[in-house]
């Protein structure tokens, strides 16, 4: 047998770690959580990716606590929010946005079902009392957040039940009142007193200002708008109809009923009329695509049989044998106005008279009293913020909710209450400058969404403001998957009752849907960075990934292969 030739290979008993390849580096990777577009688009700045991760991993109560950090109404908003989060969702580029709104509802309903206790940071009492006028979403949110910031809050509500627009304006098929009651009860459970049947007039307000340290005025829009046309007294108030239905005393309606308007009120009125057995026709002076109502609401109304007559304006209303006769004038679009929609003017051609059994207004509402919003005198004592206005002339008076909001949505009202709480807290801490600092510090992404978690110094403050763009997502790591949907009532049944149309997502479906979330900008321990690191220089210490810069060559593969842009690479500084 041949004697084997000696093997001559490099071999060492010292570790190759002696070769500190980190000295070759001229670029340095870093873990940096960023802002997901959904959370920046949410008026309440809800930490959506964190919630979806918890749902996907079956930690529903944690998901709920994360929601409650920024918004006390998961089950309400999970039903009625117009979800700008979904429009901003980066996943929309791949297939469809994550069904965030349905997941919020799932989280909220699960917590209600399990009666989860609120476990949020509550600062010790600061000894100050705040009177809150109005128990709509703005007032209730103000109470919730102010309580957490150490204020003692009392709410004064003119109606017999709290909830404002949520109770009286939003029909039960969109928001069952038991859900609302449960979420309000939870706020009361934090020590907030709600006094119903307590109207606040100017005198009461003056007394409250004298006896409290601050007043929050969020009484909503109490006066329905009417048309200034001959015979407008023959027109019924749409908001009053919604309230009457809620009180269990709806008027009898039948046949074709006109609803005037193009906003969400008009849609709610029309859809409620369908359920009362009428055949509603929406009369709108502009085009369908110009309607301020949310598109999904318009679509649902049409699906239920609501007809929309566009480019028609009522000119007069007269009683007739069969009800009312509405004289309609045709409209035509002209040049685009300041709001981006074309202006409309009478076309002078199409004039028609239509007979309806009744006519309802749905053109919106305004403040019941002029003092429900600031007088516009932007004096020294006024601090104008994005979602509320503080008058700090004497006892601080904070205006919030619909009267001062440019976009009148429930979630904007929540944002209003939150901003009012932060603003007031900061005012007492350090005056006008403290407000500016605190709000700037608490922004989610570029704002105006604010985060209470950041305000209170939570971990979320460490995230970069940068909002992750679709291009920054490594789309190779995601596969197309259909968006989750929930069961709905059959159309025939939906049209005949005020029962809620859509069911809550089933738990397994919710977990699956939450798993569709990219987790934009948030490390979810997927470990791609560690797997790809050719220097094996990423280690996990106490569940956190750590880069060993003795060996990291700065190749950047970790950053390039991060599916969700939770890392950055920067030039190495000498």
């Amino acid at each position, binding site marked *: 047998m*041949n004697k*084997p030739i000696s093997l*001559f290979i490099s*071999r060492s*008993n*010292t570790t190759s770690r002696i070769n500190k390849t980190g000295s070759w580096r001229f670029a340095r990777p870093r873990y940096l959580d960023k802002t997901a577009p959904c959370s920046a688009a949410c008026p309440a700045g809800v930490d959506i990716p964190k919630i979806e991760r918890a749902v996907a991993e079956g930690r529903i109560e944690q998901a709920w606590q994360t929601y409650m950090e920024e918004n006390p109404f998961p089950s309400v908003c999970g039903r009625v929010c117009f979800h700008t989060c979904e429009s901003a969702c980066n996943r929309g580029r791949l297939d469809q946005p994550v069904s965030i709104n349905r997941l919020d509802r799932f989280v909220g309903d699960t917590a209600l079902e399990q009666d989860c206790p609120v476990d949020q940071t509550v600062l010790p009492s600061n000894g100050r009392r705040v009177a809150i006028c109005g128990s709509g979403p703005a007032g209730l949110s103000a109470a919730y957040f102010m309580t957490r910031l150490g204020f003692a809050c009392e709410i004064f509500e003119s109606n017999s039940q709290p909830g404002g627009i949520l109770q009286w304006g939003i029909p039960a098929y969109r928001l069952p009142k038991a859900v609302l009651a449960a979420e309000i009860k939870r706020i009361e459970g934090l020590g907030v007193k709600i006094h119903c049947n307590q109207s606040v007039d100017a005198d009461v307000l003056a007394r409250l200002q004298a006896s409290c340290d601050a007043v929050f005025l969020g009484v909503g829009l109490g006066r329905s708008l009417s048309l200034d046309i001959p015979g407008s007294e023959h027109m019924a108030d749409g908001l009053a109809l919604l309230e009457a239905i809620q009180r269990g005393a709806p008027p009898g309606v039948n046949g074709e009923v006109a609803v005037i308007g193009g906003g969400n009120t008009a849609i709610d009125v029309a859809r409620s009329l369908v359920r009362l057995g009428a055949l509603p026709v929406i009369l709108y002076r502009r085009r369908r695509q110009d309607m301020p109502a949310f598109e999904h609401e318009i679509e649902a109304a049409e699906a239920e049989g609501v007809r929309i007559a566009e480019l028609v304006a009522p000119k007069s209303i007269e009683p007739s044998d069969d009800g009312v006769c509405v004289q309609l004038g045709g409209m035509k679009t002209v040049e685009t106005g300041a709001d981006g929609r074309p202006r409309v003017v009478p076309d002078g051609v199409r004039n028609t008279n239509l007979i309806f059994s009744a006519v309802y207004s749905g053109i919106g509402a305004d403040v019941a009293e002029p003092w429900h919003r600031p007088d516009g005198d932007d004096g020294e004592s006024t601090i104008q913020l994005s979602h509320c206005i503080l008058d700090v002339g004497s006892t601080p008076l904070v205006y919030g909710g619909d009267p001062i909001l440019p976009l009148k949505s429930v979630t904007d009202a929540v944002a209003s209450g939150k901003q009012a709480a932060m603003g007031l807290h900061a005012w007492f801490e350090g005056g006008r400058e403290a407000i500016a600092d605190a709000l700037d510090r608490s922004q989610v992404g570029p704002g105006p969404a604010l985060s209470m978690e950041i305000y209170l110094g939570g971990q979320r403050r460490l995230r970069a403001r940068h909002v992750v763009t679709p291009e920054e997502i490594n789309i190779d790591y995601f596969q197309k998957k259909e968006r989750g949907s929930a069961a709905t009532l059959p159309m025939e049944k939906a049209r005949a009752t005020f029962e809620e149309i859509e069911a809550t997502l089933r738990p397994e479906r919710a977990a699956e849907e939450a798993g569709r979330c990219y987790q934009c900008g948030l490390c979810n321990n997927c470990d791609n960075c560690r797997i790809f690191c050719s220097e094996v220089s990423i280690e996990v210490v106490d569940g956190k990934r750590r880069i060993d810069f003795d060996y990291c060559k700065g190749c950047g593969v970790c950053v390039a292969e991060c599916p969700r842009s939770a890392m950055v690479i920067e030039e190495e500084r000498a």
Partner: protein
Amino acid sequence: MRQVLEGSHAISEAVRLARVQVTAGYPITPQTHIIEAISEYFADGTMTGRFIPVESEHSSMAAVVGAATTGVRTFTATSSHGLALMHEMLHWASAARLPIVMGEVNRALGPGWNIWMDQTDSLAQRDTGWIQLYCEDGQEALDTTLMAYRLAEQVNLPVMVVIDAFFVSHTFEPIEVPDQADVDRFLPPIHPRFALDPKEPVALYQMAPPACYMEMRRSIDLAMDQTAAVFDDVEDEFEAVFGRRYGSIETVGCDDAEIILVTTGSATSTSRMVVEQLRGQGEKVGLLKLKRFRPFPVDAIRKALAGARKVAVLDRNFCFGVGGIFAQEIRAALCGLEPAPVMFNFIAGLGGRDIPPDLIEEIYTTTKTHAAPVEKSIWMGLNEELLESCGI
């Protein structure tokens, strides 16, 4: 036991019998059947160890390099572009002195895309430090794979067992599949000369500066030189157990031949028949089958071809700017021989084109009727009309 097997499965049977512990693989036609059968053996427990599916051939060689470093018996297989992608890791395997065995099914490289027989893929890897053994049929593929482990583990160099695309890989033939007990006798478990062991950590293969790099290369060269002798020993032992041997080359009628045809792979089988017929007609023709390409059996070739007036080398491969690769090597091997035979280099059967008996006969006639080749490489069976239509 005699079984009807395709050439690919002759190799996978040998891998099973060799009790290979780790196989990595990535599918590529016409190799896929080899890896496929082995993966099933691992899945159903016929083979024990690990099958590592990978995302590329580069990774499959990297995986077996890693596994072999721990001292286990390893296997992978590939073809064509897969082999080309492995190129970097082929150097690694040999310089790391790892006894890896690889099945390589000769297939043409694209473009134009072509999945058929052509030897240029494996011959392009001739300088990577791998032992290369070309097989004529399924039986030889099975036997050679078994011998490859003995050879590799003794000289600590990797071995490529090469078969023709389709002509061997997908052709069913009766093949003698040895008993496990006999194979175990011939091929005992691997006793690695070195192996990574977590209990005694060492670092391997780190930087080799100018002061020692040449010496390391020289040791590989010496191991490759020694391979020739070890190859004969292994064949002796194989023959003792199984009764078959192949040789680094095989000669048929070369002793009295004036013209000797040099072939590799399955074209050898066809040539055997043609040579037999021609000799029956009184032609002084012989046949040299080249099996072991690396290390190249220079002495055996010089000895076998020394008496011939002319040598016709059939290349199913091509090196642009030079000619057929086997012809280059044989020309170099004969250098300085007096009197030297006249060399004819025929190019045939590229990209899966058939090499039928009459083409081999034409090669013989051309060699016989010309005192010297009219061209450096004579391309056989070209479609002149097709060339003309392309303006060539």
